[in-house]
């Protein structure tokens, strides 16, 4: 296939006459295949009014020169302050500027060459952005967060470590897959932050595994740090590190070293709530059991005490009523009628003395089963009563 296209190009080149413009277009197409990384020392650095930067890269061994251009938008994000004498590795591709016929290397990203320079750049930026890292700027991680935004690479152990340690508290997770290694990660991270900025989340977590200062280049970028500090909800950055803490971690509201620690941090308020609920549950149970004990005691008192007292009272009442009944019965004058006594009445009034009647009076004699109408023939006073 490759051979075929090569022979096709050769054929065109040998048979066709090109205009300058068409030939340069062809060259630029072919040059796209030369996308690569080039190391060299910066000289003749200048920045145009448009913000685009122009410089040359010099080969330290033989002095060979490569002219470079870096567009304003790329330069603002690259995180490296270019200057004379700085040794850098640039990524990009060559391109011929048709109006002048000059070839320039179009830079898409820059990184410093060597740990020494990286460290220097890191220290300078840390000092410059120091006011963003102060404690007063830190926002608390919300209590009982439920919607978590995550920026990390979906490949690798980090996301699994995080999810395995996140408690079962019904978290809703919105994850944006992003490269987290090297300078190329920067664009991804910025884009991910801008994407999640529009989402409804309670807290943002940015994670990656450990690595050298060089592999953390994207995490020490000014534009990224500023984007994070302006993020609308509290942020957690869990990026492992060796010696120098990545500036992105310093800018976060909460910095932890591992994805597990980030998960634990999110679990914390839920665990506290769970513990408090268990404690409350226990106190309710102990209250209820003491209530039931008291109730049982009362129940016993009612059954064994009060009910027995009332039962005694009722029995006592019965006895009293029976006694009343027997007293009343034994004193009932009508009871004596059955024994043969009778009650004598005149005009309904009981006759107590012979003085109460006269001869020829009609009187009623009440006996047990009726009344006998009688006429008085004679009155005789009892001897014993006289």
């Amino acid at each position, binding site marked *: 296939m490759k051979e075929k296209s090569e022979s096709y190009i050769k054929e065109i080149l040998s048979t066709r006459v090109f205009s300058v413009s068409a030939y340069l277009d062809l060259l630029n197409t072919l040059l796209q295949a030369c996308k690569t990384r080039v190391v060299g020392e910066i000289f003749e650095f200048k920045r145009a009014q448009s913000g685009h930067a122009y410089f040359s890269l010099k080969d330290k061994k033989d002095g060979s020169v490569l002219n470079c251009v870096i567009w304003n938008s790329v330069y603002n994000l690259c995180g490296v302050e270019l200057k004379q004498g700085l040794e850098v590795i640039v990524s990009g591709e060559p391109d011929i500027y048709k109006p002048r016929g000059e070839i320039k290397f179009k830079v898409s990203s820059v990184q410093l060459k060597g740990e020494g320079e990286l460290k220097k750049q890191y220290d300078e930026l840390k000092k410059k952005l120091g006011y963003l890292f102060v404690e007063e700027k830190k926002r608390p991680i919300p209590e009982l967060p439920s919607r978590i935004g995550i920026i990390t690479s979906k490949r690798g152990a980090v996301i699994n470590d995080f999810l395995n340690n996140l408690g079962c508290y019904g978290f809703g997770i919105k994850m944006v897959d992003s490269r987290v290694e090297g300078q190329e990660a920067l664009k991804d991270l910025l884009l991910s932050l801008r994407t999640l900025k529009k989402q409804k989340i309670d807290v943002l977590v940015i994670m990656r595994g450990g690595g050298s200062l060089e592999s953390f280049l994207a995490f020490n970028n000014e534009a990224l740090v500023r984007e994070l500090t302006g993020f609308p909800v509290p942020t957690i950055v869990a990026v492992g590190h060796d010696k120098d803490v990545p500036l992105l971690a310093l800018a976060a509201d909460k910095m932890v070293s591992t994805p597990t620690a980030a998960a634990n941090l999110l679990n914390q308020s839920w665990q506290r709530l769970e513990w408090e609920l268990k404690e409350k549950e226990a106190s309710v149970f102990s209250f209820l059991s003491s209530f039931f004990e008291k109730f049982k005691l009362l129940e016993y008192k009612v059954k064994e005490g009060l009910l027995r007292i009332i039962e005694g009272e009722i029995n006592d009442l*019965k006895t009293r009523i029976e006694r*009343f009944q027997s007293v*009343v019965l034994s004193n009932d*004058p009508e009871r004596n009628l059955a024994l043969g006594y009778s009650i004598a009445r005149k005009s309904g009034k009981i006759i107590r003395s012979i003085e109460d009647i006269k001869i020829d009076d009609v009187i009623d004699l009440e006996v047990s089963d009726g009344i006998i109408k009688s006429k008085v023939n004679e009155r005789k006073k009892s001897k014993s009563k006289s």
Partner: protein
Amino acid sequence: MKEKNLNQNLKKLNEIVDWFESQEEIDVEIALNKVKEATEILKEAKKRLKKVENEFEEIKKGADFE
């Protein structure tokens, strides 16, 4: 006749019984009236006591919930 409660009935009965027990010679006419009144009160008291007793049995049954 206005209904009296158990205690009032018992009080009245007590008075009647006391009256009988305090008489050396009983006036038959008064005695008859007293007996008549006492019989009424006894009837009422028994009815009320039965009601109380029934209610008590219900409560006792209800309290037996172990």
